[in-house]
C-alpha cells in the first residue's frame, strides 16, 4: 500500500503546476478518418494532434484557417465540435532490439499479445535520409539463398532492389526466403561465435494485405526459426488508409535504428502499389489536387524519400546499412504504369517476375533479361562472381538460340550443346520456396554445370542430381565448404579440390 501512495505522490509532484499555454482547435468536419480542424494556429506539419481518449491524429494539411488531420485509430468517438490540441511532438515509433520477434502496427504498438515492448528509444517516423558525406558505396552482400538472385542479380547491403511482377508470381516468397536465409546465417554465426560476421536483421512491412496472408507469413517465419531476427509491421487491408500510408515509414524508422547503431538491417515493403493507393485515398479526402491516375502530385516524392532512407553508412558514420526490397504488383505485366515506372527509376535495380515463366514451372519466375542489379555486383562474393559472370551470358545465348531453334531447322553440334547446357542451367535455377541454399553450395553447383559435370544428366533428373550434390557437399565435404567461405575467391588449388569433390560425387550418383 505504501508503494502505491509513493507512486501517487510522485505523479502529483510530476504533474505541472504552472500554467502552460496550449494550442487548441475545434473539429469542424470529420469524414473517412480525416478531420478538418479550425484553430490549431501553432500546428506543425506531421505533428501529432491529441483528440483525447488516446486518439491521435497527424496534421498533414496546414491551411490559412484550418488544419487537415488524419486520425490514427478509431475516429468514431470524434464529433463536430470536439476540442483537440497540439502536442509539440512529431509522430514517433519505438525502435530497438526489443522489437525483434514482435508483430507491431504502424505506430509500433504490439499486435501479437506478447505484452508491452520494453524500449525507451523512439525515432520519428519521417526522417531525412542520410546525406552524401555519411554514405559509402555498397560493398557487402545480402545472401538471399536463391541461386538465380545470388548468381545473376546480386544484392548488396544498403541497396534498394525492386521486386516487381504480377499477382501470385512469387514476389513475397523471394523476400521471405531472404529473411529465412539470413536468419539461418545469423544463427550459424552466433553458434560458431564468429565475431566478424555482421548479422542482418529483417523488417517485414505488410501494407494493405489480407490478415490471413500476414498470418501465413508469420507462420512460415516462425516455422523456420526466423522470427527472433525479424520485426513485422502490419497495416492490413482492414486498417484505415492513414495507418497503411504510415506503415512503411514506421518500418524505415525501426530499420534506421539498426543502421545508426552500426548494424545491418533489411526492410521489405510489401507492397508499395497498395501503399500508393492508400496515400491516394488520404490525399483525395484531404482535397489535395490529383494528378495522373488520380494520384497526388507528390506520389513520386512519397516513394523516393522512403527509399532514400536505405543506405550504407561510412565507417565514420558507424558502418551500418539498411537494405530495402520494395515490392510492386503490376497489372498484366504492365511495367510502364505510373507507380511501377516511378519505383523502377528510384531503385538500384529490379527483379522482374513473369507469369508465363511461373506457369512453365520456372520458379522463382525471374526474367533474367529484364532483371538487373545496378550496384550489387560490387558486393557479390568473389567466388560466385568468378563463376556467375559467364552464366548470365550463357543463359542469354541459350534464350536466343532456343527462339531460333523453334523453327525446327537442323542444328550443328555446337548449337545443340549450347541448347542442352542452357536447359540444364534453367533447371538448376529452379528452387523450391522456403529452401534457401548456402552460397558456397551454389558456387560449387554452378562451377559443376559450367565444367560439363551435368551434361550427361538428363534434364528431368537435374533437380534430383542437384539436391543430392548439395546434400553430399554439406554432409561429406564440410571442410571444403568452409574453405570456400573463408577464402572467398576461387584459386587453382581450391578449384582442384572442388573438381575432386564433384568427380567423387558423380561416381556415386546413379539417377
Amino acid at each position: 500500500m505504501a508503494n502505491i501512495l509513493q507512486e501517487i505522490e510522485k505523479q502529483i509532484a510530476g504533474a505541472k503546476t504552472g500554467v502552460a499555454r496550449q494550442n487548441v482547435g475545434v473539429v469542424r468536419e470529420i469524414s473517412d478518418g480525416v478531420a478538418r480542424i479550425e484553430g490549431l494556429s501553432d500546428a506543425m506539419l506531421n505533428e501529432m494532434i491529441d483528440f483525447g481518449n488516446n486518439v491521435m491524429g497527424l496534421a498533414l494539411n496546414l491551411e490559412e484557417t484550418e488544419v487537415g488531420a488524419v486520425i490514427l485509430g478509431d475516429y468514431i468517438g470524434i464529433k463536430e465540435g470536439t476540442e483537440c490540441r497540439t502536442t509539440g511532438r512529431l509522430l514517433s515509433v519505438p525502435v530497438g532490439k526489443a522489437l525483434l520477434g514482435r508483430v507491431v502496427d504502424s505506430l509500433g504498438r504490439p499486435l501479437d499479445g506478447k505484452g508491452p515492448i520494453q524500449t525507451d528509444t523512439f525515432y520519428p517516423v519521417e526522417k531525412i535520409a542520410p546525406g552524401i558525406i555519411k554514405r559509402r558505396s555498397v560493398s557487402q552482400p545480402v545472401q538471399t539463398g536463391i541461386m538465380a538472385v545470388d548468381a545473376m542479380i546480386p544484392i548488396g547491403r544498403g541497396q534498394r532492389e525492386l521486386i516487381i511482377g504480377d499477382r501470385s508470381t512469387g514476389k513475397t516468397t523471394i523476400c521471405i526466403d531472404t529473411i529465412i536465409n539470413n536468419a539461418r546465417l545469423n544463427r550459424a554465426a552466433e553458434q560458431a561465435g564468429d565475431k566478424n560476421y555482421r548479422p542482418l536483421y529483417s523488417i517485414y512491412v505488410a501494407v494493405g494485405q489480407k490478415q490471413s496472408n500476414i498470418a501465413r507469413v508469420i507462420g512460415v517465419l516462425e516455422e523456420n526459426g526466423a522470427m527472433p531476427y525479424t520485426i513485422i509491421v502490419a497495416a492490413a487491408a482492414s486498417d484505415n488508409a492513414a495507418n497503411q500510408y504510415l506503415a512503411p515509414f514506421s518500418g524505415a524508422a525501426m530499420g534506421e535504428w539498426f543502421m545508426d547503431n552500426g548494424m545491418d538491417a533489411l526492410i521489405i515493403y510489401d507492397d508499395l502499389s497498395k501503399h500508393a493507393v492508400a496515400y491516394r485515398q488520404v490525399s483525395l479526402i484531404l482535397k489535395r489536387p490529383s494528378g495522373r491516375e488520380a494520384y497526388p502530385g507528390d506520389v513520386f516524392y512519397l516513394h523516393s524519400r522512403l527509399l532514400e532512407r536505405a543506405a550504407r553508412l561510412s565507417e565514420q558514420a558507424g558502418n551500418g546499412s539498411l537494405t530495402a526490397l520494395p515490392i510492386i504488383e503490376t497489372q498484366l505485366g504492365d511495367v510502364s504504369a505510373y507507380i511501377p515506372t516511378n519505383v523502377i527509376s528510384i531503385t538500384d535495380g529490379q527483379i522482374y517476375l513473369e507469369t508465363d515463366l511461373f506457369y512453365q514451372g520456372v520458379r522463382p519466375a525471374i526474367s533474367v533479361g529484364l532483371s538487373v542489379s545496378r550496384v550489387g555486383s560490387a558486393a557479390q562474393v568473389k567466388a560466385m562472381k568468378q563463376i556467375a559472370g559467364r552464366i548470365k551470358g550463357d543463359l542469354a545465348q541459350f534464350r536466343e538460340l532456343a527462339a531460333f531453334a523453334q523453327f525446327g531447322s537442323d542444328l550443328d553440334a555446337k548449337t545443340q550443346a549450347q541448347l542442352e547446357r542452357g536447359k540444364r542451367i534453367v533447371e538448376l535455377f529452379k528452387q523450391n520456396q522456403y529452401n534457401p541454399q548456402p552460397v558456397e553450395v551454389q558456387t560449387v553447383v554452378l562451377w559443376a554445370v559450367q565444367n560439363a559435370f551435368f551434361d550427361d544428366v538428363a534434364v528431368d533428373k537435374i533437380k534430383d542430381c542437384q539436391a543430392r550434390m548439395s546434400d553430399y557437399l554439406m554432409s561429406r565435404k564440410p571442410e571444403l565448404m568452409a574453405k570456400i567461405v573463408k577464402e572467398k575467391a576461387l584459386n587453382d588449388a581450391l578449384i582442384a579440390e572442388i573438381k575432386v569433390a564433384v568427380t567423387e560425387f558423380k561416381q556415386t550418383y546413379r539417377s
Partner: protein
Amino acid sequence: MTTPREARRIARALFRESFTDGRLDEAKVRQAIQQLAAAKPRMLVAILKSCERLVRLEVERNTARVESAAELDAGLRERLTAQLQKIYRRPVAAEFRVNPELLGGVRVRIGSDVWDGSVSGRLSELSAAL
C-alpha cells in the same frame, strides 16, 4: 456543403481590404457588407458566410475569453488584460465570465491558445497522468 472557391476568394479580398493599421476596422467591414448586399453578386450567401467566418476568427484572435470560478475584481481584470497584451504584443479585448465548473482558478482562451490555470483543468491533467 463546402464553400465555392470563388466565394472564398472574394470574401478573403474583402476581408483584407477591411484593415486599418493592421487592425480590423469595423466601419470598413460594415461598409463592405452593405455594398456587397446592395450589389447582390452570385453566391452572395456563400461570400457572406465565408466573410463572417474570417471576421469571427479575427475577433477571436484579438479577444481573450476569461473564465473564472468566482467573480474577478476590477484590479485583477486590469492586471490580467495588461499581462495578456504584453504577451501577445497587440491590443487584446477581454471578456469575463464566471464558470463554477472550473472549481477554482482561471482559464483564458485567446484565438486558438488556451492558458488553463483552473482546478478542473489540473485535476483532469492529473487523472490523465495517473
